[in-house]
């Protein structure tokens, strides 16, 4: 079994060299794999994103594509980081070998935080009358700000979902909130810039928001009615944001028409 597993998941060469602890596979997507490992010293954790070569692609084209994608993702991370958008720092990369090492973000994906909060709530998502939803609403607002910050720098994420955002626990703020509220506490760190592009057009930004809106509705149907808070806090986050929100209405209309036709 172990042998088959190794065949299925051959490690990138860099991870076959010795380290203080073996790498652990965190996620396996269509495009690549995400390992947790260490960088330089045993005390510095990092995420290694690896895009293995695709056997069905022509080798020269494959090498070129892999290299371009790793380079593009690293460049966008660098640009965001310099602009003060919260994203993981880039530590090292080998574009030709298909990997990039980035800062390990402690915490969990926003998706999990929201689901932990919602817990055993009934299908329709109505909270108990006594429930204070403020912590969840605050999280939605932080998401809106984070996306606004990103768009302000002229970057379109391309794959905004609650899995592509991490909730990094607040270190300095001692929390006396209950366990439930802790589930949705933390700074938003945007990750997964594999599909990111540069654009400052209302249309591209609105589509980015629309993708998030749709993803949110299907991942968290029980919290869908709170999505408006994301847009509310997006709106004042940079100068052109209000016109993006107006454009979003067009994009939604087109989306509806398309789904009716399809």
């Amino acid at each position, binding site marked *: 079994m172990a042998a088959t597993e190794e065949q299925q998941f051959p490690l990138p060469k860099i991870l076959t060299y010795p380290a203080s602890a073996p790498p652990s596979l965190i996620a396996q997507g269509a495009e690549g794999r995400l390992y947790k490992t*260490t960088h330089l010293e045993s005390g510095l954790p990092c995420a290694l994103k690896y895009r293995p070569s695709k056997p069905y692609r022509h080798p020269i084209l494959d090498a070129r594509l892999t290299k371009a994608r790793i380079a593009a993702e690293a460049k966008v991370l660098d640009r965001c980081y310099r602009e003060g958008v919260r994203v993981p720092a880039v530590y090292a990369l080998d574009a030709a070998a298909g990997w990039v090492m980035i800062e390990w973000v402690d915490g969990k994906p926003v998706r999990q935080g929201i689901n932990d909060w919602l817990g055993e709530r009934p299908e329709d998502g109505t909270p108990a009358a006594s429930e204070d939803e403020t912590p969840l609403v605050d999280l939605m607002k932080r998401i809106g700000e984070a996306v606004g910050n990103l768009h302000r720098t002229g970057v379109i994420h391309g794959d905004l979902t609650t899995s592509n955002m991490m909730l990094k626990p607040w270190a300095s703020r001692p929390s006396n909130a209950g366990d439930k509220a802790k589930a949705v506490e933390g700074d938003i760190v945007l990750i997964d810039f594999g599909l990111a592009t540069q654009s400052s057009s209302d249309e591209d930004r609105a589509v980015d928001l629309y993708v998030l809106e749709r993803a949110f509705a299907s991942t968290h149907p029980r919290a869908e009615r709170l999505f408006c808070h994301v847009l509310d806090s997006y709106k004042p986050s940079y100068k052109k944001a209000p016109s993006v929100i107006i454009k979003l209405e067009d994009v939604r209309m087109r989306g509806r028409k398309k789904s009716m036709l399809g």
Partner: protein
Amino acid sequence: MALETLNLEHIPSTHRVYAAFFRDVTNSDFLHAQLLARNPDFDYAFIEASSVISRRHLQSAIFNALVTILDGTLLSATPHSEVVLSMSPNNNIADAYRRWGIAPGKTKDLIVVKPAAHTPEAMWAHLSESIKGTPVPLSDEEISKATDWQKMRKYYSLNSVQMLSKIESEEKKRQEMERLAIMKMALRGL
């Protein structure tokens, strides 16, 4: 012996790196002349310590150089020139040597890196005999005494980074500058 063995994560023991730090060096002319003459006894990367921010900054450059050495994709002629080049945000080797290499008559604080198998005792004997300076630990504390931040801001394009001006704590600001420098090195040539 103030020679340190760097055991970096994901680097095989066959590619162990040795490093030492000398302050108040008085014979940089001589050392530079040995490099120019390609004296085989001086097969070292000599790094101007005022262009180094921290241990992690240096280790990152060494790691990046070792990755190209392991891949066999060196951009420069030798492993030690690859270490110097890896300090740079671009692929211009002459530029990298001007900024991170030893400057005759100028370099006061010098970091020596040797990315190849060697007996440490022999290497240390050779270094302590050839370098007129004071050996100190290769620690953040010692490195920070040598760092020239004005140069770091220029070399790694940090002056255009606005978020830095919003950081109040000096320590946090240095940490961020270190990370930005490491990112520029990682993205070299892209």
